[in-house]
């Protein structure tokens, strides 16, 4: 397979990730906004099981502690938005690792490692 073909496949995959991620993020954020404006409590408030997670997450990483304090519908939307760059860098890294010009993976692999450190680690 040629390099150009690989890059086209990568571009199409990234386009699909952005389309799906962005659409779902906007839908969830709009849903939360409507529920918050019109006080639709069954959407706005956290579900019962979510409160259980909150209680058991007292010693979690601060990032997760702050995320679970956000209303659940909004959190889902936010994570669809956050998933776009995460999936994007995984796709880019995989494409570079399996292409002829592996040199570019030297740049994307560290980014992936930094992502993991920031999300799971302590920065």
């Amino acid at each position: 397979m040629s390099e150009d073909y690989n890059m086209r496949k990568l571009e199409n995959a990234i386009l699909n990730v952005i389309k799906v991620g962005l659409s779902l993020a906007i839908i969830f954020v709009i849903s939360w906004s409507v529920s918050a404006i019109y006080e639709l409590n069954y959407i706005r408030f956290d579900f019962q099981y979510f409160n259980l997670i909150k209680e058991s997450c007292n010693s979690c990483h601060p990032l997760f502690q702050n995320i679970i304090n956000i209303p659940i519908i909004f959190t889902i939307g936010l994570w669809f938005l956050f998933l776009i760059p995460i999936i994007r860098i995984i796709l880019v890294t995989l494409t570079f690792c399996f292409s002829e010009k592996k040199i570019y993976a030297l740049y994307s692999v560290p980014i992936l490692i930094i992502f993991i450190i920031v999300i799971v680690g302590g920065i």
Partner: protein
Amino acid sequence: MVLETVYFLSVLILSSFAGLIGSLLGLGGGFIIVPGLNLLFDIPIHLAIATSFLGVLVTSNSSSLIYIKNRMTNIRLASMLESGAIVGTIIGASISLAIDKNLISIIFSIALFYTAYSMNKKKNRVEHYNNKSVSKTELNGKYFEISQNKTIEYSIKNIKKGISFSFFGGIFSGLLGIGGGAIFVPIMNKIMGVPLKVSIATSSFIIGMTSFIGALVFLKYGFFDPVLAAPTIIGMFIGAQIGPRINQYIKKDLLLKIFIGVLIYIAIRMLLNGLQLKLI
């Protein structure tokens, strides 16, 4: 009422404007949203920066959709610059959280003056690229130039220099909550010799990463308000969708002149705010 309709609509209008201008001029929109939230809605600067990162993430992805579809984004180049920019963003965001809010306002106003100056220069510049100068051994790319109806090939120079500068671009992006388009575009265009259109497209792609990292760092420290973030995300999405569609009907020169004027006004307001002086 949890979320007041008037408040929601006001932030929505501001962020739609930021998204619109950002997508029309190749900026993320953070240059409008941060001072807008800070000066008009009296939102603390750190919260405004955190909210701006989320909005910029939306505009960057939205405009990347169009640029990737038109095959103008250089993904290899973006990966290289992202490696420097992301480290810079983490450092910048950490500095931003550690320093005084007045100092951030002053730095922001300097960045605004710089952007106004660079936009004034950009408006008078005409680009010329010819295929003969392309070296086949370098990291090169090509794109279709509609105005000339031909494919333009280009090669990229000063890669190490570009990565180093993108690190500093990342610092500014993390420090001020801006996407960094005003910094990454000149790095690619002036230092690396990338055509302006490709620079703007690739910059939008890079901003998607830097704003994500910036948002995570601020979120970790609790700088997040869904009541503020929701209209910002929706508004910037709307603005970024309208921008590319009305692009061909807008007189760019006039828009640039107005925008430069607005930037200078915001810069003066931010500077006075940082120095804790009141406008008479």
